[in-house]
């Protein structure tokens, strides 16, 4: 009886091991296939192949990542870069550990999307000590850490918040209004920068707009709807004439909160950031006054282009650090259907 138990346990364990082996082997096969493809392409283009680790805080688990990754992988294949991609799920400790693994693997370069900008310096120092160049994507490192990286490509998160505020100032047109603000995940650098960009621009350019309350919506529509509903109750619905949210999925929650009270969103001043499949139709329907376009494919593609420029010596450590901001056009009813701002995510 005991032998049969041990036997069954062993068979089970070997089954999982088989799956693990198959998974790892499949991953290796993919890499090998990619490498083979890349080599073929390199022969055609006469270029080199490079091994690069992309340390990201999200992947296919989030809407932005699902369109960021394919663009990144396609450009990497085109430029002869073999990517090993990690996803720390916005856990700074996990990303630090992944960075240690990446440095130990001695790749040609590291593309870094910091999960928590304040905790990334040891990783950058380790990479520098190992002679591995680092390119930053999507969310920049802190100013004091920029010297440890070759460049940055991605959004100007503060600028996005400021641009959304500019739309708000424009549509309010000098009237005294009160608004509520829905922020991203507390502590997240993009959420903080967008929030600061919005509130500081409002204070500077249209002090007639008063931010009555602000709550995190954690980038999620459902939570944002609850947050908006609570804020409407606490400050009094009669005092609120507008809503700002740090992204389109959260403004959807805010708009739904208004609808749930039988209010027409078109009667309110509403702005957001994203230019997404969720946001642009709201602009077209008139429920959202404006949003800020953000291209996930631009983001993924330029991360690889930047890294490639470093690896081929176009950008060296002697050069001044490169900063490449993504164009963030405003999306309003006037241009919401234009191909230049067609949603990607």
């Amino acid at each position, binding site marked *: 009886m*005991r032998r*049969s*138990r*041990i036997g*069954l*346990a*062993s068979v*089970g*364990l*070997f*089954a*999982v*091991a088989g*799956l*693990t*082996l198959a*998974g*790892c*082997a499949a*991953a*290796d096969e993919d*890499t090998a296939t990619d490498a083979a493809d890349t080599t073929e392409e390199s022969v055609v283009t006469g270029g080199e192949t490079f091994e690069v680790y992309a340390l990201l805080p999200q*992947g*296919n*688990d989030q809407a932005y990542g699902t369109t960021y990754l394919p663009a990144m992988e396609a450009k990497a294949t085109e430029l002869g870069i073999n*990517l*090993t*991609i*990690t*996803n720390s*799920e*916005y*856990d*700074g*400790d*996990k990303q*630090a*550990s*992944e960075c*240690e*693994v*990446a*440095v*130990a*693997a001695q790749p040609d370069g590291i593309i870094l999307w910091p999960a*928590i*900008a*304040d*905790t990334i*310096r*040891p990783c950058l*120092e380790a990479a520098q000590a190992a002679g591995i160049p680092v390119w930053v994507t999507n969310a920049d490192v802190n100013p004091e850490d920029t010297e440890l990286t070759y460049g940055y490509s991605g959004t100007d998160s503060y600028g996005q918040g400021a641009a959304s505020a500019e739309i708000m100032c424009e549509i309010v047109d000098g009237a005294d209004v009160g608004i509520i603000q829905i922020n991203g*995940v*507390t*502590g997240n650098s993009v959420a*903080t920068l967008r929030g600061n960009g919005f509130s500081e621009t409002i204070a500077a350019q249209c002090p007639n707009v008063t931010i009555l309350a602000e709550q995190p919506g954690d980038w999620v529509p459902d939570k944002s709807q609850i947050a908006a509903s609570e804020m409407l109750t606490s400050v009094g619905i009669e005092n609120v004439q507008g809503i700002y949210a740090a992204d389109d999925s959260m403004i959807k929650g805010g708009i739904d909160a208004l609808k749930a009270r039988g209010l027409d969103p078109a009667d309110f001043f509403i702005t957001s950031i994203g230019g997404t499949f969720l946001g642009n139709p709201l602009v077209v329907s008139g429920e959202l006054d404006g949003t800020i376009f953000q291209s996930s494919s631009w983001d993924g593609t330029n991360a690889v282009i930047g890294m490639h420029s470093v690896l081929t010596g176009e950008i060296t450590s002697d050069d001044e650090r490169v900063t490449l901001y993504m164009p963030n056009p405003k999306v309003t009813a006037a241009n919401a259907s234009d191909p230049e701002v067609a949603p990607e995510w």
Partner: protein
Amino acid sequence: MSQTSTQTMQIGLRETTFVGKLRQRIARRTEGRAVALLAVVMVVVSFTQPLVFTAYPVSLGRIALIGLVALGLTAVILMGELDLSVASTLAVSGVVMALIPDVWMGIIVALGVGLVIGLINGFFVAVVGINSFIATLGMLFALRGLAFILSDEAPVRITNTDAGIAFGLPLLGPLTPRVLIFILAVIALQIFVSRVKAGREFFAVGGNRQAAYDAGIPVKRRIFTGFMISGFVASLAGVINTLERTAADPRAGQTVLLASFAAAIIGGNYLKGGRGSIVGTLIGATALGVLQVAFTLSGVQVPVQEIFIGLILLLAVTTDPANLRALMGSIRSVLQGRLKSPS
């Protein structure tokens, strides 16, 4: 002086040969499945990602990252309790440490915070009588909120970042302070639960609480001790993370909780208490850590990693002798029923 004779009842046969004693010793251990899993993982990884072993300081760092919190959890699990607040304890302790300008004072206060949190958890469970799942779930939320308030909702950098970066460098050969502290914690806790009376009583409290009461074991005190160990170790992990990253993140530890539970369960610790070991948790954390490093090196995406870890967890739970016996019994009764049915 009258002579007294002692009669003892012997349950089962007493093995006298070396092989018999060894067999009995192995039969009592709970780490068998963890050892088997570790062996399989090591073999598979040595063929697919040998870098995991050549870059062993990195792998050790990952094992220590998962394992340290899991060690504290084991102390609680042995008594049949749960501590869901460990991740939030880690975050609060880190923030408290970063807020205090003096590094040493910060470390002492942060560790003290961990002990106090353990004390409060113990109070709710042992004195108030709240189920540990509910009590520590409440603490999980309360402490997370406290971490956000104390940190003003943003990461807090430590004053002396150079000291933090130096802390992350190898201290003894290739071993960093994190790994050394983890090794010391394993040794200390193993001695505690196997050699110290209070530690050995954890098994009795978890195995049969009423019997433990009847035997005169101070059950409430043991529960307090278990939660204080868990809180202290979680805060120690928070201190180490904060020093190594040079900043405290109020959201820290979000992925640590489940990984730590997984390590403890894979290590053969019985969630209802009474069975398990620190060595098992070490083996579980090693298997999980090695697997995670191999996944990172292979670029296997998180959802696929989660599938594998989920399968391993399910396997670890279903191959528990008690569960396996129940499963075999069910299969046998179904088969017997079919054979008897006059179809």
